[in-house]
């Protein structure tokens, strides 16, 4: 049944996600278009225009990806609310499935949607960089793309060497750590948002306002927790100057680990809040 639930969740999220991806593609094309108008060889007025075009393209793309990221979160939350707590909830909650299956299907479909949007954004960044680099090189005939790649590989090798000295860990380990952290944060964010929508159902009326209030209260609490988890880092930063062998990761790792732990605890807590609300406190209008 979980597979079937995921299938229908995905079907419901597919169309709005596709629309957002079209918006992202449009922003990317527009940004590339603006980048291609940049011509540093032109006279002073037009060179100023090139700088402006560069700034505009960066802003345009920045707001484009912010919009698409928020839009993806919004479609996930709206679908969860609609299918669980509006009239559609009468069908959702009378399906012959367990509350675990129901919640898991929504979380899995939401994670897939979020990851697809992230991949699309990464792809668009790569395309824009490629377009930008090729465009810049069109003005420097003596400098080839191969040379740049060669130089980049030298710089990257240097970074690899210096990274371990500076940070105290290998770059690959650090990237893996950040990747795991990001995935956990994405899952926690989805479960927390779902939990807040569910908590909004505690109100007899104004349930959406209740959900938004629950979200801000929770964010405030997590901000305070964040400050507390940062204490070890600040302590080490202050005392670290006295130790010659203090590394960046050595200073940051306790806070990063604590932050990861609180994120996991938040996700687990909100998962059970969701289950409790869906079973014991369900009260469809």
């Amino acid at each position, binding site marked *: *049944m979980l597979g*079937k639930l995921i*299938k*229908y969740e995905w079907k*419901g999220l597919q*169309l709005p996600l596709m629309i957002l991806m079209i918006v992202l593609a449009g922003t990317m094309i527009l940004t590339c278009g603006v980048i291609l108008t940049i011509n540093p060889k032109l006279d002073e007025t037009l060179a100023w225009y090139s700088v402006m075009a560069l700034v505009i393209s960066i802003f345009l793309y920045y707001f484009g990806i912010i919009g698409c990221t928020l839009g993806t979160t919004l479609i996930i939350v709206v679908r969860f609310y609609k*299918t669980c707590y509006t*009239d*559609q*909830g*009468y*069908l959702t*909650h*009378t*399906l*012959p*499935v*367990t509350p675990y299956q129901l919640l898991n299907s929504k979380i899995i479909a939401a994670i897939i949607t979020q990851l697809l949007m992230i991949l699309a954004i990464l792809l668009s960044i790569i395309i824009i960089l490629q377009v930008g680099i090729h465009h810049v090189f069109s003005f420097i005939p003596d400098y080839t793309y191969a040379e740049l790649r060669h130089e980049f590989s030298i710089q990257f090798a240097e970074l690899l060497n210096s990274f371990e000295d500076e940070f105290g860990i290998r770059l690959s380990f650090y990237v893996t750590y950040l990747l795991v952290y990001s995935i956990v944060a994405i899952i926690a964010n989805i479960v927390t948002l779902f939990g807040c929508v569910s908590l909004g159902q*505690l109100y*007899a009326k104004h349930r959406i306002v209740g959900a938004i209030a629950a979200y801000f209260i929770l964010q405030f609490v997590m901000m305070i927790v964040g400050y507390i988890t940062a204490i070890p880092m600040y302590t080490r930063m202050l005392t670290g100057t006295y130790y010659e062998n203090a590394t960046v990761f050595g200073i940051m790792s306790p806070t990063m680990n604590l932050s990861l732990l609180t994120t996991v605890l938040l996700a687990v807590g909100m998962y059970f809040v969701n289950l409790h609300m869906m*079973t*014991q*406190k*369900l*009260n*469809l209008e």
Partner: protein
Amino acid sequence: MDTNQTNNISKDPVYVDSNIPLLQLNDLCKRYPGMGTYMSVFHMNLIIPRGRIIGLLGPNGCGKTTLIKMINGLLAPTSGSVLINGMAPCPATKKVISYLPERTYLDNGMKVSQMVEYFADFYEDFSTEKAYGMLGALGISSDARLKTLSKGTKEKVQLILVMSRQADLYILDEPIAGVDPAARDYILRTIITNYNPGSTIILSTHLISDIENVLDDVIFMKNGSLMLYTSVDSIRSQMGKSVDTYFREVYAC
């Protein structure tokens, strides 16, 4: 009632002890938060057997919908218990209950055919042929998106989906409220000709005169309590009144 319907649906045998009632309510209570001490359902005890068409009757706000929601697992009881085939509401009980709420619960973005597929995917006892047969008889296009259909047509689609199942218990909450008399006749005909004869239908309504002739038993509710549970025949023979007349006397303001 017409019990000559064809049953060509392969259905897994349900091993239920015949001594176990289809539906049993044990001292069931429901109090909503913020309602003080008022109980929307107050210490209800009831045993519903198989093979009956039962009218769940009472004025607005008497607790009919709250009771129905608890049977379907949409509300947790404050105290007491609901047992369907001896089990508290769970996926196994949801498999054997076909529920028509008073709200339109269909996804407006989906096509009628997609909703049929959805029901066929989740309910083993759902008959796709039966659903398409009824949709065809009403001239409802399976390619139509639900958002393009009128409220009445959507309600008909919903009823068709619910009645295309071979469930043990059909719970229909206000299926004829807000529809024109011709549609009411169609809905009642659909219910009577499509339900599984071995199963029970609980029909909640306050439009008694329209459904009186199809009922075997009636449950009267008042202020969240069970007032009366008897057969339609006994009301007619012992009191010499129709259910509608008796209802009007009982609930006279």
